[in-house]
């Protein structure tokens, strides 16, 4: 017994892999629908006049953001946690009945939460706060799911064999703590049904904060939900999967230390950059702006650490589509964490805020960095979890190029759209009157909206190829032996 290698138990990881793929399709499909609706407003009624209330842009928009953040991304984070956690802590979930139970409870409660979110958003039950649209009953469910995940994390850490926590574990712990703190404070609300003695809708609530204070808390949350949902856990993934897949050691331990603690300390300050030129106090706006620039350092620290990990092994980028995904992901991470600080400079923000340039920035981050990294992680996990070879390497390669083209079309069109619209809003004629009416600045965007919709559609097509490849891997991939599973993931031509 003693000398046998550990048998890791991936049953919970498999469940979350499945929800990553399914919710990814849902979230991205809704996104593509939205993109076409902006280019061709007739698409608001794509299920007919009678269902217009439930299919129009404004009703679907929160569903898109929440499905990709809390559906696709969080599922990916959970799936990788239940895989990476066991392996770097050198302990199997099968060793603890309690942890196994918690893991499964985590998954099923999470699914119930997701279903409640979808139904309530389609019905228009929302608090209107971005990425915190859920009313109080769902908030409570989310807190319970989160606490269970926390128990899973610290439970597994509690019975670990490897005493030192690997870098990825730092980031998972930070994800857990960060979201817990942010979510609790931003969703402080008073249920009106109970406070008024039983009048009106039972699920309705009113925010604890008013006006400027509400905005301040919301963007402290909104910005850092990006930090602890789209950055921190994704960095956790790349610190595990890139060294594993390439067989290279992480380039620098000191750089990873600096980036981790730097990111933790600096990120939270930067939320104010969403509120430049608003009514929050000026010193907070300046802090938001300055710390956004400082944020380049820890962000680039991680990205450079990852790229240098490939030092001397760059031929792998050409030979392995999986390495391609991860190297492009860290490149997009660098790109996006440079673009963000530029937009946080006050004079740039005056032009960029409220325009599609911001939408473009979000999407080069999430499509290029988050999406690519999560898909790469699942590709790496699949043969180890299902004991089967990746079904098709050539399909992975085509997927990579289709999605890369999609991302490029997306952000380039949104840059042009955003800067064009921003310039037109502020243009004055020679008499000092506004040069354009608002509708002029909308009509001019039509070609860019169309290009963006094409880009988004290409990304969705690539994602469907990914889903198909995963499905075929599960069901028809060649079986592989444990001994074949070294570093590079086995793939059939």
């Amino acid at each position, binding site marked *: 017994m003693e000398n046998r290698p550990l048998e890791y138990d991936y049953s919970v990881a498999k469940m979350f892999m499945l929800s990553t793929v399914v919710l990814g399709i849902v979230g991205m499909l809704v996104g593509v629908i939205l993109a076409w609706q902006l280019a061709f407003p007739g698409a608001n009624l794509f299920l007919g006049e009678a269902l217009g209330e439930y299919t129009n842009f404004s009703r679907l928009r929160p569903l898109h953001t929440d499905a990709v953040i809390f559906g696709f991304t969080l599922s990916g984070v959970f799936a990788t946690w239940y895989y990476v956690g066991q392996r770097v802590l050198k302990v199997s979930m099968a060793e603890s009945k309690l942890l196994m139970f918690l893991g499964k409870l985590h998954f099923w409660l999470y699914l119930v939460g997701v279903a409640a979110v979808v139904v309530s958003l389609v019905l228009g039950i929302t608090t209107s706060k971005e990425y915190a649209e859920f009313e109080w009953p769902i908030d409570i469910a989310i807190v319970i799911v989160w606490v269970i995940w926390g128990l899973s994390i610290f439970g597994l850490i509690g019975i670990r064999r490897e005493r030192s926590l690997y870098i990825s574990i730092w980031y998972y712990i930070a994800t857990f703590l960060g979201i817990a703190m942010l979510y609790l404070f931003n969703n402080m609300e008073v249920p009106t049904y109970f406070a008024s003695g039983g009048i009106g809708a039972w699920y309705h609530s009113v925010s604890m904060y008013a006006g400027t204070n509400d905005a301040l808390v919301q963007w402290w949350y909104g910005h850092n939900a990006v930090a602890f949902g789209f950055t921190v856990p994704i960095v956790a993934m790349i610190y595990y999967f890139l060294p594993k897949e390439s067989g290279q050691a992480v380039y620098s331990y000191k750089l990873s230390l600096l980036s981790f603690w730097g990111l933790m300390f600096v990120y939270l300050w930067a939320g104010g950059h969403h509120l430049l030129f608003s009514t929050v106090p000026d010193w*907070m706006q300046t802090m938001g702006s300055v710390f956004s620039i400082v944020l380049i350092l820890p962000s680039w620290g991680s990205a450079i650490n990852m790229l240098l990990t490939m030092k001397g092994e760059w031929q792998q980028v050409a030979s392995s589509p999986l390495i391609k995904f991860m190297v492009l992901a860290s490149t997009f991470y660098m790109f996006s964490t440079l673009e963000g600080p530029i937009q946080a400079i006050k004079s740039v923000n005056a032009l960029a805020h409220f325009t599609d340039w911001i939408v473009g920035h979000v999407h080069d981050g999430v499509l290029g960095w988050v999406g690519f990294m999560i898909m790469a992680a699942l590709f790496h996990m699949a043969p180890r979890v299902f004991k089967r070879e990746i079904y098709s390497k050539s399909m992975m390669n085509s997927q990579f190029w289709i999605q890369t083209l999609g991302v490029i079309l997306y952000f380039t069109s949104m840059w042009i759209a955003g800067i064009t619209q921003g310039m037109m809003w502020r243009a004055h004629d020679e008499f000092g009157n506004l040069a354009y009416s608002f509708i002029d600045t909308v009509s001019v965007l039509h070609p860019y909206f169309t290009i963006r919709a094409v880009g988004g559609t290409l990304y969705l097509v690539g994602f469907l190829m990914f889903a198909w490849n995963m499905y075929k891997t599960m069901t028809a991939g060649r079986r592989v032996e444990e001994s074949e599973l070294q570093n590079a993931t086995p793939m059939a031509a």
Partner: protein
Amino acid sequence: MFHWLEKRPFFFAVGVFIAIAFAGLVEIVPNFYKASQPVVGTTPYSTLELAGRHVYIKNSCNACHSQLIRPFKAETDRYGHYSLSGEYAYDRPFLWGSKRTGPDLMRVGNYRTTDWHENHMKDPAGVVPGSIMPKYTWMYTNLADIDTAYAEQITIKNVFAVPYNKPIPMKDGSTSVVKLADTLDGAHASALEEAKLVTADMKDQAIKDMVEAGNIPEIVAIIAYMNSLK
């Protein structure tokens, strides 16, 4: 020190928490001590206006429309005086938005009329050629939720001391009182009274008939809200 921390998950987590909580303490807490005071002339929402605000939120109007005028000439030319913190004192939640796919609505009540909204919500492109805004036809049949609006008014009056039934200073030196009914029936009656003021300027006979019969459709509530944005 870091090697020591990496072997002690508890202290590690405490360290991370201190690092991330620090910014919030310094940046957010001070503003709460100086909670924004309403500027002169800012009044809480009436029952019908609040019901209209709920329609605005239900349809995520804030996904495409901001309510925040920045202090630039181009913005004040287009939308009116730049926003002041105190003007949002009764906004729970705030509705600043983060994207202007459509124009800002902070002071839309100053330059758009009931009649304009009535036609525009039904067919935006018919009023503004080239508009990409969807048609909100269901607002003409769905009924506004007066009960929930009233429940929210009672809640904010009791919990946050919002000054309903109290004199509020106005810009011209006079005072104004926003009435809050004692009972739910009373709230319905006052909302209906307000709704009739809106429908007096509307053309759609079906809407007028609904309000005469005591039912308030969403469109009437949201127009009352829009008209209150000044």
